[in-house]
């Protein structure tokens, strides 16, 4: 009698365990607070290579030149040609050898959107997020024009920037395709 009862308890407990396992997805604590994209907008600075996420605004190389002289050249050198503590941004050097020192925007960066994205999220080094979107477009245009990747009067905006074809676009080999 006792044994039967025990068996029944074991079966019920086992059933309960199975049901819990089956329903486990629904049993997470649900402590996340719903938030809408509008509230995230100020943080949402992701730019995709097809231009998704690029904000309104625009800038030209000429506008960028004066901003660059004021806010960037101290580290990146006059006209972005290096000589300061940070990397040169303008160079015609070709890749010769495996050293990362060979990498330039012109010979290595695959997407123009990466320039906009990085400036907007991280530059100037000691005052990130202090530039307006127009200023970021202007600086991007300036760097592209100095590298002769766009014309000296080309306007960069959400439509034109992703269309700039970077010379290194097809220079890459995906290392482990099965991990993507």
């Amino acid at each position, binding site marked *: 009698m006792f044994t039967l009862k025990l068996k029944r308890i074991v079966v019920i407990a086992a059933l309960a365990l199975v049901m819990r396992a089956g329903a486990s997805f629904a049993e997470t604590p649900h402590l996340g607070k719903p938030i809408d994209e509008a509230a995230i907008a100020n943080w949402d600075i*992701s730019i995709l290579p097809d231009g998704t996420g690029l904000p309104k605004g625009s800038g030209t190389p000429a506008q960028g030149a004066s901003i660059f002289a004021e806010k960037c050249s101290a580290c990146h050198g006059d006209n972005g040609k290096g000589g300061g503590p940070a990397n040169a941004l303008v160079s015609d050097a070709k890749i010769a050898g495996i050293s990362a020192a060979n990498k330039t925007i012109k010979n290595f960066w695959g997407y123009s959107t990466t320039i906009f994205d990085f400036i907007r999220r991280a530059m100037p080094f000691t005052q990130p997020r202090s530039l307006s979107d127009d200023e970021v477009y202007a600086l991007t245009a300036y760097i592209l024009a100095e590298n002769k990747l766009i014309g000296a009067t080309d306007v960069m905006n959400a439509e034109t920037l992703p269309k700039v074809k970077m010379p290194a676009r097809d220079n890459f080999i995906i290392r482990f395709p099965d991990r993507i």
Partner: protein
Amino acid sequence: MDKSADRNAGKRDVRRQDLPIVAGNGLIDRRALLGRGAILAGAMGAGIAPSAAGAEPLADDPWSLEMGEPTPPYQVRSKFEAKVVRTLSNPNNEPRNAHARTPHHLLEGTTTPNGLHFTINHGGVPTIDPDKHRLVIHGLVKQPLEFSLESLSRYPLVSRMSFLECGGNSAPMFSPEPMQETVQALHGLVSCAEWTGVKLSTLLEETGIDPKAKWLVAEGADSPHLSRSVPMKKALDDAMIALYQNGERLMPGNGYPMRLLLPGYEGNMNVKFLRRLKLVEQPAMSMYETRTYSPILPDGKAYRFYFLQEVKSFITSPSHGMALKGPGLYEISGIAYSGTGPIEKVMVSADGGKSWAAAALQEPVLSKAFTRFRLPWRWDGGPATLQSRAWDEAGNVQPTRAEFVAVRGELTKPPPVLGFANQHYNSITSWGVGSSGEVKHVYA
């Protein structure tokens, strides 16, 4: 059982010439370490028996004769250990990145103490108020959600050991000649800790996933808003939002109050100070993924999305900068790890790769974590070249330097030791022992 024969066997074993040598230049069977410690200890004392005559009588030292220091609420190590520190690339916090390297030659076991875990920060270490920090998950989800540290701490937590390695660790070994640097300078940008946190897949269950999502873009709350793209495949596998490091909250330099942990994947992808995860259809091609961590190959092309920290090992003792104090028995000790899974075996050579012996692996051998290997070695006082080579359970083998260079190339001249001339270096490291006992970095 013939007890006298057994006793005689024991006697034979303690004689120097009978230690089970299994590979050239004095490598001893690893089983001499396992359960046969007494034999090894006996052997170490064999040879010239030291005389006890004239030994100083033992006296009590002052600390045995007075009450000690008060017990602190948060204890720190002995002041005599003050030299065991990380080496810094940017101690004055100039506006550039800052690295701190783990002193592997001064540590043992498999867990890196929190104060010695390597860090690289790209805009200083932010001071984040944990009560104000938020993690947002949005993009291609059914319901964007915002999490506080307090709310995440109430989720079912998981703990796992995991190594973390900078994709640029060991970069000085791209040098065409062996740089005379310690294991800390060469390999100090890898560490291993127990991480505790919430599985990312649990949170993604709550937000829901739009089937179009193939990547997520992770972003930190630090000043560069460091950002990396991560395949959803990894996010739903073993990715974690880590909240604890070796049982306590994360160190500030390791991402306090929360970081992304992607076991086995290059350090930079394990985004610290994590504040945002956006699910997207395509990778963002961020600066760090398309420039910094895309290594150039000898033909001028470059790898992208390397992700994996491949199978690797190195001997931490003896290692460059140490000096052996005369011929005799030493223990070779080192660490092995693979981003693919558990270590299967580690072979050690004392003759530059001519012959090899299997090292003892310290249990537990865990997936994507440090495995400590050890092997007894009798140094006869002559030149020796020590190497270790690791295999992982997936069948990957650590390449020799020649094999590695044949595929990945090398630099034309020695680089600055703190630089990152290239990434994802994992060949065998060789330590040359000279007749004087001095240990130097060599290529073999």
